[in-house]
């Protein structure tokens, strides 16, 4: 069983603040982390390997410093890592990113052998699109299984997987032929924390850098010019200020005033 986990290094967007004077993002001191949804993907890859044997390969596309994210994945238990990094990939949107990563996975298959399962997080917390995973699946002609909340069964003989998918109003149980690509939600597992010992070990695990020249691909389909979507404008939304009734001071009094208001509103709503 060969599992490839695709991860992304992201700024910790929960720490990002807006400068109220200039209405711009303040990124200073914001740490880079492994996209939280990808930690569930890494964990699930390792669990499949622990149960069925084989290896887990982790890959990321990004600037050189994305290597840190790969080291974290190696410390959690992945066996080897590929860093997909080239100036030519910069500015890729989801279509170009999925295309580039799929070309890299083809390269990994040449180096390491055929891949049975690809796992991605359901989306990255900076872009929140969830489009790269399914895009990779399409490029590699694998069925995409999105929003997976449980891997019920992996059958190596029959080359099949049974998963539960988390939908808005229920769960769908799907059987699928392998190879397949999964995107996972956070209900699927609890990612492990790597120990100091494992972090030391991770420093010695193989890390291969792949650039444009290493891949067989159409270079017009990657990077900024391979991206059909353009960011036209970035702005802080103007809040239509409502001049609301805001109470300040004694908690008891304020709460009583609000309670009276709520009853009035509620009456209006139900009449």
């Amino acid at each position, binding site marked *: 069983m060969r599992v490839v986990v695709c991860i992304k290094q992201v700024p910790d967007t929960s720490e990002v603040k807006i400068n109220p004077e200039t209405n711009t993002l303040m990124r200073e001191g914001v740490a880079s982390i492994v996209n939280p949804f990808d930690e569930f993907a890494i964990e699930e890859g390792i669990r499949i390997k622990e149960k069925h044997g084989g290896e887990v390969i982790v890959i990321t596309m990004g600037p050189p410093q994305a290597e840190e994210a790969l080291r974290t994945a190696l410390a959690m238990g992945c066996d080897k890592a590929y860093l997909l990094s080239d100036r030519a990939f910069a500015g890729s949107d989801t279509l170009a990113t999925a295309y580039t990563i799929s070309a890299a996975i083809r390269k990994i298959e040449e180096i390491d052998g055929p891949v049975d399962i690809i796992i991605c997080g359901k989306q990255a917390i900076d872009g929140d699109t969830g489009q790269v995973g399914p*895009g990779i699946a399409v490029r590699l002609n694998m069925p995409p299984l999105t929003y997976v909340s449980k891997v019920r069964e992996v059958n190596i003989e029959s080359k099949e997987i049974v998963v539960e998918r988390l939908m808005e109003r229920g769960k769908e149980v799907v059987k699928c032929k392998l190879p397949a690509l999964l995107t996972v939600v956070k209900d699927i597992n609890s990612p492990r924390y790597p120990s100091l010992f494992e972090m030391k070990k991770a420093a010695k695990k193989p890390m291969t850098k792949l650039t444009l020249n290493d891949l067989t691909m159409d270079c017009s389909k990657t990077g900024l010019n391979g991206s059909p979507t353009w960011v036209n404008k970035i702005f802080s939304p103007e809040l239509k200020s409502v001049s609301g009734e805001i109470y300040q001071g004694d908690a008891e009094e304020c709460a009583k005033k609000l309670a009276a208001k709520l009853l009035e509103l509620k009456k209006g709503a139900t009449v």
Partner: protein
Amino acid sequence: MSSLKIDKDLCVGCGACVDTCPQGALYMKDDKAEVNEKCTLCGACIDVCPVKALSIPRDATAKTNLADYKGVWVITEHDGKKPISVTFELLGEAVKLAKKRNTYTAAVLLGNNVSEMAKEVASYGAEKVFLCQNPVLEHYRTEPYGEVIVSMVQKFKPEIILTGATTQGRDLAGYIATKLETGLTADCTGLEIDEATGNLLQTRPAFGGNIMATILCPNTRPQMSTVRPKVFAVPPRQNRQPEIVNFDYDFSNLPIRTEVLEYIPFEEKISLADAEIIVSGGRGIGKPENFEILKELSNTIGAALGASRAAVDAGWISYEHQVGQTGKTVRPMIYIACGISGSVQHLAGMKHSDIIIAINKDPEAPIFKVANYGIVGDALEIVPILTRELKKAIGE
């Protein structure tokens, strides 16, 4: 290869771009901005520059004859019997876009024995219905649905395709856009037509929902967007007969690699999306146990319980309660935000509420800007008093 261009003559050395760069790729040298290899061309710096010294030159040649593409399509999502609400919401929006583009509005309807639904989508604005029926399409599956729609698009060439940003809609749109090698913008909160170019201006929260971005897809067609449920209102219903275009698809060559074994519906409870009143908690709630305080309030007034992303990410409450860009978009009559500061991504999910009530310690919190009523104070102190007072009044 593309790179960030910095016009040194224009640059005034204010450093705004350096502060904004998510990658730390910009720095000051001799009072002018410089860029290093960490730059990912994300574009965050472009609009913060007060003197427009930064730019990313792009290849602006169309990859196809854009004028060949006409019509605004909405992909119908349904439960086998009737379309879900987001389909109607999108049809209302599609009609407006089509009018500006002087073109038609259509719904795409796939399934097994679903032709009855054609009238339904027509009554919300679809002039045409592209219909494909087959037992293979009984349950939604990515590949069969995706392949049928891809061949429909290749034949009829729509200029815009909208799908709901639901699990199914996002799954399907990602498949179609990749096959067609066109642009797809997720979770749009606003759609407009640029009068000058005819391009679709797709606005969505970006950078973790901290800021908004307008996305274009100028050189390829169709332009594709997913839109969250409840972002747009359901348009008024009108009786109308659609023009039905039956579409035959040969499934014999399509490998069917997935099989839906079972569907397990969740227990019904007050659904966040349909609730008239929502009591929602954020970072200010402090710990999981404190959500009990909000539960008591919501039980008292028959409200559903919501939460901000911060509270869900901290693991205090499950994801199904999340309101905001990556959770649910809601339109209740009353929304009570407790200990929620009101980040862009949260506001995107609840700003259409009729009445917004905010309880927050920080008088400067953005939530107060949209609040009709509010209390500056600790939600943990205020909410129990509020509940007590309401119980008293309702008990009477």
